[in-house]
């Protein structure tokens, strides 16, 4: 019946009558144990098409793409390439047929040059010299400038992505899959990428574009297939939809809007950073340079920036995972804390939520109650003369569960068994329940479903309303626009002066994220200082 419906479905732009799609999946199903990651998915991808694959985390996008790229074998259903059923033995077969993929997480060797990295990814029949020449030529043709001789660690995230794209293009693919390519780009870099994709389309290639940025999809894509809970919900023309209607299809309902509670007042400075400079703790890390800002109670400061510009280092310096020699560089609640350990900073009323949920924010194989103890042992009355008050740790779990709607299979499961969104709600809840004076949170809704993201953003707003100072680092500009009062941008270990959110346009932020300054004179002065 599905097949029947599919044949009746007019393709959205109505151009393909009589031809067969470039790639087609028919009833593609992937089962992991009892879990259906993909449930009988039909998708048609035509030449000259930029096809969006939309869905929340866990909707089955990655699974589908991995099956198409030969990384996993479907449990049932088939894949057709130019009308012929195929079974892909692995990615190299996919590549040889003309399917290329650019992953969200790059697989590059930091200490090798661009050309060496590309050579490693190709099935090398040509000489290294020929390959380098071709690399330069391809990168020039598509407007993706790259110096083949530079080592990868010296490159920005955007440049690293270029390597991955050029590497894929050098195989002359008919079909290119891109997994969340703009997640790591500035708005301007994203615009450049769109030009490249339009060009690929004009050359007759097809692109499968995975994203959850709906405006972007509306702008760029001809077709969108929406997945939810492993099933295909709809294939539509995104240009005829609104962002809200696309979001409804992704989520399967309305998303609760985040509201800034009325009556928020800023009070005294609760977190002050004075001229903080810190050498990187590890090779290829980012040096923090002269970072200063002041954050009052009742205020949310957003820090934007492309990943890898020192946000992790700043988090470590603020949390006390890395110490500064000068106590005055970090002042929490009026007390110089640059030299204090994370436990001592917690005792001053600070709380922290790192970007990595598993392995940093929690010990994955430990129970939630133990993970409550992980950050609560310092100042939450969970420890009596060195003995753990198990009842108190369980109470924190219960309160976080209730207040932040954490869904889990049992009262006290292992952290790793929770979904990303639920674990993040637990982690944020664990810290907020401590009534912190200062909350430093990194990527609060990274990889979290829309429902959980709304809960978390609301919680941050409520915390600020209650008088806490909240510092949010995020790569999601929409998120910062939604909750932050002011936004500053990190670039190469420096932090720009904060802009009021009302004045922080995408263009301005994009320029700052790319390292340009808004007011050249002032910037020159800052560097001289």
């Amino acid at each position, binding site marked *: 019946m*599905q*097949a029947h419906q599919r044949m009746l479905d007019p393709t959205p732009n109505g151009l393909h009558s009589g031809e067969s799609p470039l790639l087609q999946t*028919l*009833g593609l199903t992937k089962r992991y*144990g009892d879990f259906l990651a993909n449930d*009988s998915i039909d998708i048609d991808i035509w030449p000259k098409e930029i096809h969006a694959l939309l869905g929340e985390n866990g909707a089955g996008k990655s699974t589908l793409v991995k099956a198409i790229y030969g990384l996993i*074998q*479907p*449990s*049932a*259903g*088939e894949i057709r390439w130019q009308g012929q*059923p195929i*079974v892909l033995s692995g990615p190299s077969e996919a590549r040889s047929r003309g399917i290329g993929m650019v992953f969200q997480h790059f697989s590059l060797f930091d200490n090798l040059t661009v050309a060496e990295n590309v050579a490693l990814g190709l099935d090398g029949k040509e000489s290294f010299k020929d390959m380098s020449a071709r690399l330069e030529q391809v990168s020039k043709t598509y407007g993706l400038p790259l110096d083949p001789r530079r080592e990868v660690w010296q490159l920005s995230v955007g440049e690293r992505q270029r390597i991955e794209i050029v590497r894929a293009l050098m195989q002359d693919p008919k079909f290119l899959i891109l997994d969340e390519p703009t997640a790591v780009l500035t708005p301007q870099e994203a615009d450049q990428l769109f030009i490249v994709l339009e060009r690929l389309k004009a050359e007759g290639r097809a692109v499968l574009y995975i994203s959850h940025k709906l405006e972007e999809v509306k702008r760029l894509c001809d077709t969108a297939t929406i997945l939810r809970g492993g099933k295909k919900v709809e294939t539509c023309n995104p240009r005829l939809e609104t962002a809200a209607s696309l979001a409804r299809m992704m989520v399967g309902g309305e998303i609760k809007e985040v509201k800034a509670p009325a009556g928020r007042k800023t009070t005294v400075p609760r977190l002050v950073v004075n001229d903080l400079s810190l050498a990187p703790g590890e090779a290829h890390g980012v040096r923090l340079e002269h970072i200063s800002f002041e954050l009052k109670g009742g205020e949310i400061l957003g820090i934007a920036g492309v990943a890898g510009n020192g946000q992790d280092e700043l988090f470590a310096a603020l*949390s*006390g*995972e890395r110490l500064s020699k000068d106590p005055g560089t970090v002042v929490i609640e009026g007390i110089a804390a640059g030299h204090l*350990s*994370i*436990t001592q900073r*917690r005792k001053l009323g600070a709380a*922290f939520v*790192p970007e*990595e949920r598993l*392995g*940093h*924010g*929690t*010990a*994955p*194989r*430990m129970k939630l109650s*133990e*993970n409550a*103890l*992980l*950050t609560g*042992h*310092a100042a939450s009355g969970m*420890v009596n003369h*060195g*003995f*753990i008050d198990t009842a108190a740790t369980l109470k924190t779990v219960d309160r976080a569960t209730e207040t932040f709607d954490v869904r889990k299979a049992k009262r006290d*499961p*292992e952290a*790793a*068994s929770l979904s990303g969104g639920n674990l993040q709600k637990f982690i944020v809840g664990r810290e907020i329940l401590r009534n912190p004076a200062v909350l430093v949170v990194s990527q609060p809704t990274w990889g979290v479903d829309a429902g959980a993201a709304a809960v978390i953003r609301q919680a941050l707003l409520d915390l600020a309303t209650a008088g806490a100072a909240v510092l949010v680092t995020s790569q999601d500009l929409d998120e910062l626009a939604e909750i932050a009062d002011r936004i500053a941008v990190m670039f190469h270990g420096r932090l720009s002066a904060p802009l009021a959110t009302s004045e922080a346009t995408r263009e301005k932020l994009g320029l700052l994220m790319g390292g340009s300054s808004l007011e050249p004179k002032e910037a020159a002065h800052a560097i001289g200082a």
Partner: protein
Amino acid sequence: MQLVLEKRAERSNTIALVSPLIAIGLTIVTMTILFAILGKNPLLALHAYFVAPLTDGYSLQEIAVKATPLVMIAIGLSLCYLANAWNIGAEGQFLIGAVAGSWVAVKTQGTDAGAWVLPAMLVLAAAAGALYALIPAICKVKFGASEILTSLMLVYVADLFLDYLVRGPWRDPHGFNFPTTAEFDPVATVPLLIEGGRLHLGSIIALLVVAVAAILLGRTIKGFEIRVVGAAPRAARFGGFNANQLIILTFAVSGALAGLAGIIEVAGPVGHLQPGISPGYGFTAIIVAFLGRLNPLGILIAGLFLALTFIGGEQAQIAMKIPLDVTKVFQGILLFYVLACDSLILYRFKVVFPNRQVARGTH
């Protein structure tokens, strides 16, 4: 059809309990084959190993005596291993503890020193074991030297040092040139629990150590710190725990326990210092620690089980002329299976049939 390992959503507590038993089962199967190859009747050999020692009181006491050092050392090692600190040199710490404690015994020999001698021996042995274990720990923390190698190499240093002492300065002048000290005075001897038996006070100390470790790991923040540093180092740092301090601490504690076990062995069942006071307790304790799932109670049971193999090995040698080295083979195979079975706690076997999606397309 193929067999794949699939990750479990949550660790399986059932398998965590059963895995040592599976390992023991597999070891026994392997040993059966080995006995058959050696030309011995496997049933009789297994009987000699595992059943015979349990049938008479003397052997039962002897099992407890052998289990005492194993359990004490393994408890210390389990703290190290939980914290991701790899102390392989407990044998050396055991010997150094024996030497340091014996120093008091040798120096007070024949004097009218009072009841303070034995406590002093115990304290000194624990301190010496701790200090000896601190050498690899500090090298690790300060210079990044692999504690696995340094702690292992120090075993041989300790072994030769003991050898030198009993052949040189501490040799019993009336000992017919045997490399041994004189028998310790009664005040320098660990008291027996049953007159004329073998069971001594050390076994009680071992039980106390088990109880303290169980409370430490299960109930205290320090125990939590040990577990979380090993299980998730970055999360531990985020929690405010210092992994380097913990390496120092766990090495010191495990060294102290090994040293204590050393002097208890010398001042108890052996009665004097001599080479060969340990049939490899420090190494066997590594197996005990893992077979016991790094859990104090588990270690107590595992310690008794491995002690049984020591006694059984002796009986099999006497009764069936099976070489004593077979016991070591047995222990090695057991460790191998324990580590292999542990992967089943986080993974499970799954039978997968080759993909046939083309053959059964949807239409």
